[in-house]
């Protein structure tokens, strides 16, 4: 078990950012998902020791998050969401500097900085001043500084934000390579569902500071609900109200497709019965394979 937290709570003044979150994360790439303000970044910051939880306990690689922060930071690479660099430095100096601050000998840090900069695709630009880097290059640089000391876990906070489509694909390719081939565990916080779906085997979904779902994506899809896509003719209002009364969530797309998220244990025949009661005609009925987007909508309740 690489990361384990129990009853973790944190508040920013009166605002509760995390409320009793407990989870155990397995090896491999894990997605940390949730809408803005769900507590994803706060959780990462608590795991790194930037913030001290008000309640609860946790361990990262067996190190206590309250008492052994230095050991955790030695073993973890952190790629923050916001742009961060040191003005007046080039990429080699910057990357080796943070390697040295992690505890690498100076010469080793310098050698390693060259290696990771080549790895992230900044080999040619490694002597350029960081002030002149584009957004995509800064993103790669953040990944390089997170990798320089060869961490056992990578915490990536919105790694593809502010990137153009090509840059995004390249960063995702790097992360996939790291998580699948390099025996480095990745905890990826993102609100871009496609990124998590493309990279992660399991997911943690936070909602308003609470744990909404956790586990392997395939299992979560099966456990939490079943998704049916139907097309109807007639007044959809009473039909929707009837289904919602049964605990289902109903969404309608712009082209008139009605998505029905039936709760765990729900019977699909209830949809037909509701149609009869509401006097609507079912024109098509498909049990859909759920995407992460559907899972997210079903669990969190937002689009």
């Amino acid at each position, binding site marked *: 078990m690489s990361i384990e937290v129990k009853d973790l709570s944190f508040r920013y003044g009166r605002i509760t950012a995390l409320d009793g979150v407990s989870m155990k994360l397995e090896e491999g790439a894990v997605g940390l998902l949730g809408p803005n303000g769900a507590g994803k970044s706060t959780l990462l910051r608590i795991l*790194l020791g930037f913030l001290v939880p008000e309640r609860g306990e946790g361990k990262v690689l067996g190190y206590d998050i309250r008492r052994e922060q230095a050991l955790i*930071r030695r073993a973890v690479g952190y790629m923050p969401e916001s742009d961060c660099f*040191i*003005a007046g430095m080039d990429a080699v100096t910057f990357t080796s500097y943070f390697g*040295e601050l992690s*505890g*690498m000998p100076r010469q080793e840090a310098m050698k390693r900085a060259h*290696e990771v900069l080549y*790895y992230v695709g900044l*080999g040619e630009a490694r002597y350029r001043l960081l002030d002149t880097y584009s957004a995509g290059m800064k993103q790669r640089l953040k990944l390089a500084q997170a990798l320089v000391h060869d961490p056992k876990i990578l915490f990536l906070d919105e790694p593809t934000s502010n990137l153009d489509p090509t840059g995004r694909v390249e960063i995702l390719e790097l992360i996939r390579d790291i998580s699948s081939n390099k025996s480095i565990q990745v905890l990826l916080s993102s609100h871009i569902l496609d990124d998590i779906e493309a990279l992660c085997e399991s997911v943690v979904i936070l909602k308003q500071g609470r744990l909404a779902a956790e586990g392997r994506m395939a299992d979560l899809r099966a456990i939490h609900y079943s998704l049916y896509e139907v097309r109807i003719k007639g007044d959809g209002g009473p039909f929707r109200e009837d289904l919602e009364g049964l605990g289902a969530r109903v969404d309608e797309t712009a082209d008139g497709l009605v998505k029905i998220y039936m709760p765990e244990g729900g019977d699909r025949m209830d949809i037909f019965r509701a149609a009869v009661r509401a006097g609507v005609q079912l024109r098509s009925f498909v049990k859909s394979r759920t995407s992460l987007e559907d899972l997210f909508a079903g669990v969190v309740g937002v689009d």
Partner: protein
Amino acid sequence: MGATVREKGYTHWDGTLVERRFPWWPITRTGILLAFRKKRFKLVFAAAFVPAFIFLVGIYISERLEDFERFLQGSDRFLNIGPKYFSTYFTNDSLLFLIVLVLAYGAGGLIADDLKHSSLQLYFARPLVKRDYLIGKMSVIAFFVLILTALPGLVLVAFKLVFAGSFKFFLQYPWLPLAIVGYAALLTVFFAFYVLLLSSVSKNARYVMVMIFGVYIFSNVLFGILRGIFKTPYMALFSVPANLQQAGAFLFGQKLPHAVPAVWSFAVLAGLCLLAAAVLDRKIRGVEVIR
């Protein structure tokens, strides 16, 4: 750029991370190197040694008065080398101003740049604590202040002995090197807190530079205005340079420039350092927490 992603694959590092005795040292070394990459700073830094050079020439002439009699024309009373001479070197307005100038150019951005470019979180994602970060930054300031004060001060003493060709001066004032080191240490501690305080209150290094000058000069202007109004020397306590000069005169055993007990100046300087420590403790953290 995409082509280079796979140019070299990722390889694990087979070394061992070490626990440093001084984890802040890379911060200090990098801070000093970054300062020297600025052209303007190099000029200012070089200019800051002019007072030391002038005082060194003064020591040389004092040992060869007969050779320079024609040039001095009775002004050799200024060349009576003793604690007063050293006190004058350390507390003269031009040296203090040059120190402020060096720190404004070389150290103004120490924290401001980290705040501007959100790099604090990168520092604190490493096995560093707030204390390591602040010691690292303060040591940059200590390097500049000590190299402009303690080093020339001790070199001046050494040259005095060399030019005189005897240890008489040292035996006469054996406490002088201690006073030099003590005053240099006081300047170091004060300026470390002063500069880092101002560097932590803005994300713009240029504003910080202006503030480092502004507060220093404005405090002296304020002193002049208040002294004019209230006709009391205690108004000197409002002035940063006046307090430093009071402390310097006290440490070198000289008459205080203002008729205020030196302990008050020490208290004001200590108070400013405590205020700075409190602000820095609040401002320096891995994440910006808005409560």
